[in-house]
């Protein structure tokens, strides 16, 4: 057999090329090993993970498998080291590891948020700043302050009707006099065309040439996670973002248990205080980072599922729970910060976006707006993954939505070592199919503290494909590996030993965790199947699948397909949008047209109640399996399982 000269060049340093002579048919990964060149193989050389990708710059090789490489990649000479053998003298470029992670086709990261094109504070915004010069009163002109101010508004700003709260009223006399009858007013001009008076939010003495910062908030109240964006209204820029678990969690993990809790004596009040406290805390920390003060927040747009909105407003949500599942209100009016107990400017405008039904709330109308699905001609499937999974199917002509209870597992709650997608969370995992040893990627790169949603999906898929889990999610504790053991909560897998973690404790996934994840993914997939069946389209015909929700900023689509969470369609159809609910509130905050569109979406979407018959239950039970009881729905997973 002929020997060939193999030259390795490493992309991340300018060191000397390393050469080695080996016979025809040697695997590149084997050659790299013998040459002492590091090529990552977290899957154990099975061609599954794509982490061993290299570029052949000279000579030719034979690829056994090109899984994970596009035809463009192949034409550029990319190859999987564990799946390619040498045929001639070759020169191989080994890219730096982090570059590989960024170019994999299965990874989907959230795009950066853009300020809406053409945002102009003085035109698009409902919050306005008005400078007024008043004629001072005298013995001859005995007009009261408020009437005088109204006259100035009418003549100088064209506002025929202006209203204000008792709180503002208390401050106007002093402001007018301290400013020597020149004042700066902050007003809300929303819905003027429907005859609603302009609302005076704040009156400050003097007219400063420089507008003092006007802050506002885009808020998403999730059952599990609350997200706040602090937005500079003048520029439209997001100056700080903050997320935290919803303080209500201790009173129930899902909406149903929250509703039950709210029905207890003073339970509703307590839950209202909990969520307001969570938001206030987030606002303080966001303001601190941006150098702002909460008192300068004049407007907040809030989205959340219907139960969360009811609880925020202190409205008893009990009717949401019982057939025929009716909310008290789908389109709430505007409130002020002090009415709800927020720590922002007391008269700040609180605008809760409209919802559709008990289980398809403002978070979805907001998401449908920000995802852009209401404006496309493509058949689009939109999924918002949270504690409740909400699914919308349709396009610019029609929208059909449903909701299914997934539980908080994908947000890292309800799982022993689960956590939110913040620093220290394991966000991706590979498991070697021969040794069952894991390779992990941690957000921030330090020692792991726990596993976040995307990490859990990744872990479940890897354990399944490596044969650690059977299709029912049972851990095979008979494997010859210290990583599997019988624990208090059934079979478990140890992902990180205690001396490798930031907590000093083993990071594990237990049978109970796996059951929670299976239920979550089954609920979502069942929602997909029932929705598509009801409108008579084939799920796999969806031209684009838009995913919003709390997976952090990253998801591996292939792994989500492998566990049967997402339908088995080509990866390029998936787009990962991050928190679409808060993004929608951000658009609604800045643009009154966007705000109007959300209202239209809320009025036009058809809602399908999944509990109306047992089709959802059937679909759910058949999805309670890896990837699904009907493997033919997942052809790529079937192929992966059949690969030796």
């Amino acid at each position, binding site marked *: 057999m002929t020997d060939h000269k193999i030259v390795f060049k490493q992309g991340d340093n300018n060191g000397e090329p390393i050469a080695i002579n080996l016979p025809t048919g040697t695997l590149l990964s084997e050659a790299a090993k013998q040459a002492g060149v590091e090529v990552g193989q977290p899957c154990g050389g099975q061609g599954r993970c794509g982490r061993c990708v290299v570029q052949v710059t000279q000579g030719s090789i034979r690829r056994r498998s090109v899984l994970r490489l596009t035809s463009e990649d192949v034409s550029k000479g990319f190859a999987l080291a564990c799946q390619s053998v040498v045929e001639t003298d070759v020169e191989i470029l080994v890219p730096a590891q982090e570059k590989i992670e960024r170019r994999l086709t299965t990874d989907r990261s959230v795009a950066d948020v853009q300020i809406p094109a053409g945002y102009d504070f003085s035109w698009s915004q409902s919050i306005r700043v008005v400078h007024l010069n008043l004629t001072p009163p005298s013995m001859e002109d005995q007009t009261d302050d408020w009437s005088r101010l109204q006259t100035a508004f009418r003549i100088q700003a064209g506002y025929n009707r202006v209203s204000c709260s008792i709180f503002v009223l208390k401050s106007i006399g002093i402001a007018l006099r301290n400013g020597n009858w020149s004042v700066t007013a902050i007003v809300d001009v929303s819905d003027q065309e429907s005859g609603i008076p302009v609302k005076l939010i704040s009156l400050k003495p003097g007219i400063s040439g420089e507008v003092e910062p006007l802050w506002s908030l885009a808020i998403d109240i999730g059952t599990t996670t609350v997200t706040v964006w602090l937005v500079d209204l003048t520029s439209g820029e997001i100056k700080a973002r903050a997320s935290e678990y919803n303080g209500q969690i201790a009173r129930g993990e899902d909406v149903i248990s929250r509703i039950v809790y709210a029905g207890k004596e003073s339970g509703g009040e307590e839950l209202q205080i909990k969520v307001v406290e969570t938001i206030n805390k987030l606002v303080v920390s966001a303001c601190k980072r941006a150098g702002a003060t909460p008192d300068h927040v004049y407007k907040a747009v809030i989205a959340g599922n219907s139960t969360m909105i009811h609880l925020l407003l202190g409205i008893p949500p009990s009717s949401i729970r019982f057939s025929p599942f009716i909310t008290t209100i789908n389109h709430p009016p505007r409130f002020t910060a002090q009415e709800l107990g927020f720590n922002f400017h007391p008269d700040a405008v609180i605008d809760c976006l409209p919802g559709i039904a008990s289980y398809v709330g403002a978070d979805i109308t907001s998401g449908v707006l920000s995802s852009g699905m209401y404006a496309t001609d493509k058949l689009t499937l939109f999924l918002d993954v949270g504690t409740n999974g909400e699914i919308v199917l349709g396009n610019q002509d029609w929208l059909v939505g449903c909701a299914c209870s997934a539980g908080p597992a994908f947000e890292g709650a309800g799982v022993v070592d689960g956590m939110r997608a913040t620093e220290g969370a394991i966000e991706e995992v590979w498991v070697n199919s021969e040794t069952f040893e894991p390779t992990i990627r941690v957000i921030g790169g330090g020692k792991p503290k726990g596993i976040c949603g995307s990490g859990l999906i990744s872990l479940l898929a890897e354990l399944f494909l490596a044969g650690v889990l059977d299709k029912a999610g049972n851990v095979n504790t008979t494997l010859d590996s210290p990583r599997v053991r019988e624990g208090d909560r059934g079979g478990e897998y140890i992902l990180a030993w205690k001396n490798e973690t930031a907590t000093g404790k083993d990071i594990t996934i237990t049978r109970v965790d796996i059951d929670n994840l299976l239920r979550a993914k089954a609920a979502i997939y069942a929602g997909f199947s029932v929705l598509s069946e009801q409108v008579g389209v084939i799920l796999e015909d969806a031209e684009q699948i838009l995913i919003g929700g709390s997976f952090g900023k990253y998801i591996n689509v292939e792994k989500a397909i492998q566990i049967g969470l997402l339908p088995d369609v080509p990866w390029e159809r998936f787009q990962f949008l991050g928190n679409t609910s808060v993004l929608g509130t951000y658009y609604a905050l800045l643009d009154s047209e966007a705000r109007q569109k959300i209202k239209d979406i809320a009025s036009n979407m058809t809602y399908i109640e999944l509990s109306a018959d047992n089709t959802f239950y*059937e679909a759910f*039970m058949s999805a*309670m399996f890896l990837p699904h*009881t009907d493997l033919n729905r997942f052809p790529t997973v079937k192929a992966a399982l059949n690969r030796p």
Partner: protein
Amino acid sequence: MPIEIPKDKWPGTIHTVTLGATNGEGGTRSKTVTFGGETTMPFLQFEAPVPHKPVVAIEIKDHKPEDWSLLLAEVWGAAMTDPAEWAKAAENAGADIIVLALSVNDENGNPTTPEKAVGTVKKVLGACGLPLIVFGPGQVDLDNELLVPISEATKGERIVLGICEDKNYRTIVATAMANGHLVTARTPMDVNLSKQLNILITDMGMPADRILMDPTTGALGYGIEYGYSVMERLRLAALQGDTMTQFPMIVTPGFEAWKTKEAKVGEGVPGSWGDWKERSINWETLTAVSLIQTGADIVVLRHPESVKRVKYAIEELLMA
């Protein structure tokens, strides 16, 4: 005018399964029992012949059970205290198969040991020539502890080991595969769950003709409609070509019927309920006969009179 009866033709076939092995086949049974093989719904002989008729198994215990109805104690008499005698009596009562259900504790209240369980199985095999099904006591660890040595001690007999459930099937399937036995897979009245457990067992490499499925049933008046319809849907799926449902079905109407109040209680019930003994036997018989008509291949019964009546019903249905 002649009326043409429409006939269904199905793409799927139920696996034909044989229980027990004779001397020549590596076992010690005097006869084997074959069932399954259906190509249409039960007893529709105008569509396709019934290849094998449903069979009746009698359930016996490793020692005299304390919680069984007095009527059963009365009819089996002293045989109940000795599993070998009980098996012989069951064979004489017309059983096609013996089901030996092991208990958590032995007759002295001590935990059942593997040695004791193996001894019981061997005694039963020695006393009668029928094929055997062995159920563990129904506790994960104990089931595995008892069934593995039983499986090894009876290698080649083609007995059925059970009961596999989704959280505990691996050990039972592995030992059955290694020793040439069959397994039965029980799931709680759900088409998808049945199918899933069958997939798990098949994934381990168990051949299709060595798997029985037990979709679980309820007694007459206690959920039989639900069990009936799950079985019917499983059978329809199988005939439509779903390979993971094409296994013969075993159900335990005896166990279900004899725990109902109607069968259990003889005193302090309304007079209109009629004779206790007749009522109890009717309860078991009707439960079993209903299930046979939705596709049960093996019904496990407890009272010899019910066995007689169910077998009679099967013959009558086949003549129609």
